[in-house]
């Protein structure tokens, strides 16, 4: 995590699909182009779908790392308005 300058954090472990993606999307909409966010996501469906959906929206996935507690940290750079 230290490899990136994190501008914002979001936790989407308290919601289920498809709100996981929606909550991540909302968090990203509040950032400026190029800013980086760290998103905490659950194992299973969220970790499979959320990074892919964010990529489809044009954002850049920088890193996905397991936290060892069935959650992951997803580092994303916002691309676009």
């Amino acid at each position, binding site marked *: 995590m230290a490899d990136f300058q994190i501008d914002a954090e979001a936790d989407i472990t308290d*919601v289920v699909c*498809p*709100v996981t993606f*929606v909550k991540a999307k909302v968090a990203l*909409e509040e950032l400026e182009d190029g800013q980086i966010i760290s998103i905490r996501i659950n194992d299973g469906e969220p970790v499979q779908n959320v990074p892919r959906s964010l990529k489809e*929206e044009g954002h850049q996935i920088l890193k996905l790392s397991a936290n060892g507690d069935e959650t992951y940290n997803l580092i994303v750079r916002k691309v676009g308005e």
Partner: protein
Amino acid sequence: MAFTNEQLERYSRHIILSEVGVKGQKQLLQSKVLIIGAGGLGAPAALYLAAAGVGTIGIADADSVDLSNLQRQVIHTTPDVGKAKTQSAKETMEAINPDITVNTYHTFVTARNIPELIAGYDFIIDGTDNFPAKFLINDACVLAKKPFSHAGIIRFKGQLLTYAPDKGPCYRCVFKEPPPPEAVPTCRQAGVIGAMGGVIGSLQAMEAIKYIIGKGELLTGYLLTYDALKMEFRKIKLPGNDSCPVCGKNPSILEPFDYEQTACDLKGGH
């Protein structure tokens, strides 16, 4: 304005859409739509706009719920018979979505009250069932520079058009004045398939939503007709009309006015 988790869940299918997103959903929540007539067209329009989170919905109707309404006016239920349609509609809309505010106007819409009525709204939906009311809404909206959706349904057919300021033609460009009473049938005399209100009223709601989020092409400059028996939709291009008495170059209609209503129209509520 930040969304709660509950709101994110409620509106998730909207927010996922790139054309809506957070911005569009906020625009919907901040928007105000007036529906005139809580009947066959107004009922589905009101349900979908309430569900969509249109923040303020006005509903105008002087009528009470009648048993014969329930075949198509899906916002009212059997226990609502006898209740003011505006109240019944408000209760259903608020049950669907407690996020929204519903303003009720239990009154006939006339030339006297329509300017004040429409003033606070961003978009108007004409869900009335008679020509005097449809012309009144057209004139008032054109004069006040309010976008609106006009529609009519009868038997197995329906049609609609959208007017936005300076994006005519308006309803009066196409149909100069109301036909004499009884010259063309209205749905009370002719009947209508209930689902027709669902199809056309939902299209009206869709126009309102597109206008609010500013995405896509509105049905301005066209009349969309639907013939259910032939299963045929047609999008007919409408010519402009510079000599239109309300939106033309030298308008003669400078303020809204009422046409005389037939006893039958009045009995029905508008």
